[in-house]
């Protein structure tokens, strides 16, 4: 059988993280495979969040793709298969002549799933200069989100040259969590201009939980009243960019 394209991962964690991140936003996903690697870009139906994924060929154990190809999958169906893989299992992705997605897990589990018609619209990326950049471990960020959620549906971030402040306010009360620059909590803090942004936990929580510990640290970049971009590293060179539109005062 001839394959239009074939890629083999080392281990299953990266693919699991990617699929799980995408599943927080959409039910159907269209991937693009080219000689350079695999990419995905899509917004949730309400257009509040956008995921942009780049997974270069060098991140794979083996990667072959002669010509650009788009393939669409139902994320829940795809996700179910991928979850059958053990941590160490490699996963081979391919597309057959009869337009099926072939997923080989480990040595001998060979799945075939139906591809769906891919939606063709090209999504641009928001064009924003970022004034603030905060790098911290994903576990620390996950904890902050949990701390804020106790009192609020939204996370407000204030970044100054010396510290990053995470806060939330709700009917029952409020919370402030301060991280000083130069401590273990913050791996990097660079601020061109003091910036304040408020973002919905309804979107932040699921994606941070979905990527989980696969990514070591994350980078949050934003400007006042502008979208937030979170970078999750996948493997050594792949990355997920999660964009989230801000909430603003009326």
């Amino acid at each position, binding site marked *: 059988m001839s394959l239009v394209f074939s890629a083999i991962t080392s281990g299953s964690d990266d693919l699991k993280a990617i699929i799980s991140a995408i599943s927080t936003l959409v039910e159907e996903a269209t991937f693009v495979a080219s000689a350079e690697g695999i990419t995905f870009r899509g917004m949730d139906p309400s*257009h509040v969040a956008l995921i942009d994924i780049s997974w270069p060929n060098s991140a794979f154990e083996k990667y072959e793709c002669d010509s650009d190809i788009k393939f669409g999958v139902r994320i829940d169906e795809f996700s179910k298969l991928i979850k059958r893989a053990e941590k160490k299992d490699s996963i081979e992705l391919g597309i057959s002549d009869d337009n099926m997605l072939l997923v080989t897990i480990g040595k001998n589990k060979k799945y075939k799933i139906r591809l769906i018609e891919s939606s063709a619209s090209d999504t641009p*990326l928001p064009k924003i200069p970022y004034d603030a950049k905060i790098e911290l471990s994903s576990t620390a960020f996950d904890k902050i989100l949990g701390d804020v959620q106790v009192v609020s549906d939204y996370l407000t971030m204030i970044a100054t040259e010396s510290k990053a402040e995470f806060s939330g306010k709700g009917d029952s009360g409020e919370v402030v969590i301060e991280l000083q620059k130069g401590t273990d909590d913050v791996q990097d803090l660079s601020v061109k201009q003091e910036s304040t942004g408020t973002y919905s936990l309804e979107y932040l929580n699921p994606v941070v939980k979905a990527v989980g510990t696969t990514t070591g640290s994350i980078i949050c970049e934003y400007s006042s009243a502008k979208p937030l971009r979170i970078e999750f590293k996948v493997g050594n060179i792949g990355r997920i960019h999660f964009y989230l539109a801000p909430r603003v*005062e009326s």
Partner: protein
Amino acid sequence: MVSSSQDIRKAIEAKWNEYLSKYGNLFSSDSLSGTSPPSVFVGSYNYPKVNVGPMVPPIHGDTSLLDTPEKWIGKTLEEIVNYRLNLVRGIQKVPVSDPSGRYIENLQELAMSETATDSDIRFYKATSPVGLLDGYSAPFGPIGEIKSVKFSSSPSQRQIEKVYYDRDLLASDAVLKLYNSGIEISQIQKCFSIGMMGKKRKLVPTRWSITATDDIISKSLIDETLDYPLIDGVRVFHFEHMGNLFSVILFPYRWLYEMIEAWYSKGVLGFGSDHEDARGIDHPPEIAGAYFAAKLAVGEYLVRNQIQSGALVLREIRPEYAIPIGVWQIREGVREAMKQKPVLADSFGNALDVAAKPMSISTKEWLSHGFILKLMRQKRISDFF
């Protein structure tokens, strides 16, 4: 000064009693001959073994008006209640999971009939009129348990027949197919409820089937609008009938929908609301069927005009609405609102003033019982492209 709902109910009841004393023999009999609009009804009481049967008035001729709400715009509450009360409801107990057998098949044929259908029913004992009920459920004519029933044959709607015999078609796809081929929603709903669609067929109580069909159709309409450009300004629509006031505000926004209802109960104002964005709603709306009925009417307007927008629907229920007559009046009321010439507003705030003006509730009160302003604070990623 508007009369109180008590007065209106009393007046309707008095007229109905007068009518009964004149024609009561037509209703209190152990047999009934008449023309079904056509109409079938599936009760929800005693679910999953429910009362199912045809609705037939004691008159012959083209009775279709009696159960086609799409034709009721402009009628008074009293006229519509009379339509309902004229329909005698025959029943037999049937388990919802088993819509088969001669009786159900006859009802299915009736439901897909193109024209009103002559019917002869024999009851176990004489039917007797029920009163105007509690004011919560839609009024009914007399009820009787059916011993035997005969329908004359009448031509079936071709499109419905196709869906009926297609056992591979999902119920939701069947509903959409019929809607897109121009079948009235009231007829689609009857076929849905009498177990004529889907792979695994079952009876669906009428009140649930109304919500289900409105939900399926409105969802599909809104999905279609998501690819259309945003509306270019703020438009306000208004319509009122039978003590129900509807105002609809459309504004440039990715699909965002809120419906807020207000009613007077013993002189005190009550409110209810629910909302969704393009991800849809993931729980039964607080305001139940009204939510989907209004969403459907708004969705039809957007699709017709090939635009996308945010929508706020306000519904004030006045005491004149003495007898609730069903969700259809919301669908048709908002449909009618969307046919009016809109007022163009220069801002959302201005639109709210226009929308609330014919109503007895201030914009401040409306806003404090909804979430629309809070929802609009969430920006879209596409705002930054």
